[in-house]
């Protein structure tokens, strides 16, 4: 696990500005902190020596005001920077997935987790861990430089002892790695148990088994407590050890300063500056250790997201057609993870008008449409097809108005008259008119609120509005009531008058309306199409 992956800057240009800001604020804060040590020492010396307080007090006030402003900016830059980095990452991921064919996308479960919790866990990584990293890189170095100028003996002590901290941390880490690893994995299981039985509560209540879980929860929570404490004891112990080590190092500086002061070989001012500066060299390193732990999830998520963004993809085997004709040549496709091709050497040609594709279920009809639409990349063969609008078997309907659903994905503004015309073509105009807010009526998720037939006709209206020269329909009228079927078939016929329409169907009525009929058939190891006179 790398603390900082430079690919972040390369792949997510939006992250550069917030990260640079974080680094700048962190560095200036470091400079201000070191300047404060000087001002404070001057003020203390002025008080002790009975000198005028005006100048050091003014410096101190000025510096603290600057530090106040920096602290304000720092909090804001960190919080907003964290959000900026994680949202930019999420946006890049999602828009990349939306541009890839299906087989190049990760499994839906993996993708959803990465796009939600994964990218969100990058937020604390960017907002807390990276600033800590910048501070750890800048402040100890600045403190050391300042010390060299003030008192080289103290600088030498710090320079010699500072590397002990990371070395010591690494030693503790190495010594406890196996133990920690073992505990973490068992801990993950134990802490997940409660969430698991909570999410399963309705199921357990349904089978009358929930009461028995109460004792199990008490027992597992007890084990979780013991296991967590064992892990925490180790973590707290190592952080206490590091703190002690840092304190000892500062004490060594203090001893050298104290002795030289007592023997008169050193002035009070450099002595005070030295003991105020020395801790500044050590704490940023300890803070990185503390934040590293809480940023572990983010680091891991960032790595997989960047892998995802930089993965190479195959070039599409798709030639854009200028005419409305679709030509498929020796097309083969195998689902990822499957060994048998679902389509093997399919040839098909479909010109303007309505082409229907029939075939037994499982023969790859839906896959064929997805290939033609460019949503999948074939293993072999070529596809020549214009831009397509595909109405799948579960077309996307969003929570939103009728209007929003109609105009979704239309790469152009669609005027109200056109929307009504499309609704009229599928005989939904009177229904929509009867709604309290007609076109602005809100539909539920997945079209809840409409019947199955109404949903099918609505997505057909959307296909009518699309300006794609090729419209692909996957079982547009399966499971619909008779009235919807008649209306939908008429609309499909109208659509085919001006465009190339390919429809997969089991309906003989639709086959009867077609200009061409292709029967897709599984034949031994190869599958082929068969032109049936329409």
């Amino acid at each position, binding site marked *: 696990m790398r603390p900082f992956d430079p690919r972040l800057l390369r792949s997510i240009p939006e992250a550069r500005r917030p990260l640079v800001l974080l680094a700048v604020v962190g560095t200036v804060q470091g400079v201000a902190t070191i300047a404060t040590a000087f001002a404070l020492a001057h003020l203390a010396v002025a008080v002790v020596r009975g000198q005028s307080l005006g100048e050091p*007090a003014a410096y101190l*006030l000025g510096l603290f005001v600057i530090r106040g402003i920096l602290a304000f900016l720092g909090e804001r830059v960190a*919080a907003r920077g964290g959000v900026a980095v994680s949202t930019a990452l999420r946006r890049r991921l999602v828009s990349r997935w939306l541009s890839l064919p299906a087989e190049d996308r990760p499994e839906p479960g993996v993708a959803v987790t990465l*796009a939600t919790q994964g990218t969100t866990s990058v937020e604390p990584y960017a907002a807390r861990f990276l600033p800590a990293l910048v501070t750890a890189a800048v402040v100890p170095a600045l403190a050391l430089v300042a010390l060299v100028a003030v008192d080289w003996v103290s600088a030498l002590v710090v320079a010699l002892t500072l590397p002990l901290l990371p070395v010591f941390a690494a030693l503790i880490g190495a010594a406890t790695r196996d133990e920690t690893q073992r505990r973490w994995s068992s801990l993950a299981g134990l802490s997940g148990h409660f969430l698991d039985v909570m999410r399963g509560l309705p199921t357990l209540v349904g089978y009358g088994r929930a009461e028995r879980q109460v004792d199990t929860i008490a027992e597992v929570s007890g084990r979780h407590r013991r296991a967590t404490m064992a892990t925490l004891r180790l973590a707290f112990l190592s952080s206490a050890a590091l703190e002690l080590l840092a304190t000892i190092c500062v004490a060594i500086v203090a001893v050298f300063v104290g002795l030289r002061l007592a023997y008169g070989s050193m002035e009070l001012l450099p002595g005070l500056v030295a003991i105020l500066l020395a801790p500044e060299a050590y704490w940023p390193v300890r803070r990185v250790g503390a934040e590293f732990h809480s940023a572990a999830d983010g680091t891991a998520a960032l790595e997989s997201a960047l892998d995802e963004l930089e993965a190479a993809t195959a070039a599409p085997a798709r030639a854009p057609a200028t005419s409305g004709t679709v030509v498929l040549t020796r097309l083969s496709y195998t689902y990822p993870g499957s060994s048998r091709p679902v389509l093997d050497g399919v040839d098909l040609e479909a010109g303007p008008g309505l082409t229907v594709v029939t075939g037994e279920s499982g023969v790859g009809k839906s896959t064929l449409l997805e290939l033609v639409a460019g949503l999948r990349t074939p293993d072999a063969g070529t596809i020549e097809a214009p831009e397509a609008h595909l109405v799948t078997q579960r077309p996307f309907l969003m929570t939103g108005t009728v209007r929003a659903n109609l105009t979704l*994905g239309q790469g152009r503004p669609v005027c109200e008259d056109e929307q009504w015309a499309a609704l009229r073509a599928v005989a939904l105009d009177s229904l929509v008119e009867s709604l309290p807010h007609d076109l602005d009526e809100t539909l539920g998720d997945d079209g809840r609120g409409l019947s199955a037939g109404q949903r099918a006709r609505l997505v057909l209206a959307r296909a009518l509005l699309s300006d794609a020269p090729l419209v692909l329909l996957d079982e547009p009228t399966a499971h619909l009531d008779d009235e919807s079927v008649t209306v939908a078939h008429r609309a499909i016929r109208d659509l085919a008058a001006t465009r190339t329409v390919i429809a997969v169907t089991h309906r003989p009525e639709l086959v009867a309306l077609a200009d061409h009929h292709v029967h897709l058939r599984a034949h031994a190891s190869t599958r082929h199409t068969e032109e049936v006179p329409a």
Partner: protein
Amino acid sequence: MRLADRQTIAAGLLGAVAVSSGVALTATSGWLIVRASEKPVILTLLTAIVAVRAFGMARPVFRYWERLRSHDAALADLARERTSLYAALIPLTPARLVRRGRAAMLTGVVDDLTDRVEARVRVTVPAVATTLTAVFATVLCWLVEPAAGLTVAALTVVVALTTWVAWRVETRGHDDLGAARAEVGRVSELVTSQALELQAIGAQEAATGWLDDAHARLDRAVRRQVTGRALAAAVLPAATAVATVVCAVVAAGSDRSAPVLGLLVLAPFALAEVFAPLPDVARALARAQAADRDLKTLLDAQPAVRATTRGRVLEHGSVPHLRLSGVTASWDGTRRAAGPVDLDVAPGSVVAVTGPSGVGKSTVLAVLARQLDPESGSYTIDGTDALDLPLNQVRGLFAIVDDEPHVFATTLRENLRFARPSATDDDLRAALASAGLGGLDADLDTRLGTGGRGLSGGERARLSIARALLSGRPVLLLDEPVAHLDHATAVAVLDDLMAHRGGRSVVVVSHRPEGLHGAHGIIDLRDHAPMAAAG
């Protein structure tokens, strides 16, 4: 919300020793340096050297001790609260949980509980430690020079006020931020899981547009939320500077020895380090309070059924005749959610309930399953009023398959067996085969769920059906069982179910046409009346 108990206060006291040691370390070091510069006999410095060493050691040691104590107490609390929360939720499940997205809601409950319990470590312990240290520092400075004591006290008050403001801002922005985060999660999940459907209609740009809107809203919420914390973080150095200068002026006019004066000048600076974590404390408090509010709202609900334990005992094993006549029901006691509904489920029949959303399809199932009491009308089981029968027995008649089947993080065997603990491995395999999972490349010992083998949506639905078949319960209630499945899978899953249902009755609710396939009767709740339909 209980923020303090003996354990937490004890941990807070240990924390106070650790934090005070830190302050004392800075102060005594300052004293020591100034004293050393007066070139005394080294021996006279010994006491101070010992003190510095002691404070230096005490800080990490006491901090370690405090962290052990506070975390152990919090974990013990977490164990107790988890158990009692679970027990309290059982009678409220499922009627008093949200209707859709229950798993996400229950995840939120788990997080809320953690936030509430963590408040004792993240709020109480640092608050006790900081307050005691500030009082201690004030008293010491007062003893040296009353004016310096007042200055330190004033610094403490200013910091406390700023923390209060930060807490207010956090509290006010908390709900907004939570809603904005939830929206980002919802949109990302929708767009990611529906990528293919969105590409099919060329809606990629619209989809990234939704994500951009959600992100913009999140950015606004974060900006508002962080202002309080940023303000608190900014006030601290400014107040420290003023306090330091005032202390310096006081010290300059004091007749104490030089080393003591050095100590006075450094005191506010040393305290600033102590105050630095307070904005985080304010944030943790705001979160815990919001979590507490949510949990109270949830647990204040009344169970939706009156439980009876007496009454006639149902005949075991036979398929009951269910009849609803003129039944109305409501989830909240004010708004009617369904009815009046007449429904007749003869033994062994398949009845589909349809109608647009909001018409009360799921409500009817909830009444049948005795998750919700009807408000009026009658519900009889084999002619006896269902409300007079023992609740556990009536509930035992129904196996429910919904659109959010939960897969437990355990073996396939345990994922099935809770539906019938006496089942043998052969029974389990038979149930899996009937549900169409016979070909699953997993044996009964395969671990499923989080960290185990993942199941596709179709496999999850089939697992849920296998449980229902295994349970031997005579009536299957299917609530949108295939809502999240693609068409082909939905048809295959339901065909398998209908083929293996045996003599069981089935009541199915679906807004998708596949779900109604094979029903003997379809009740459209829009008409409030049964109508005959072809199967």
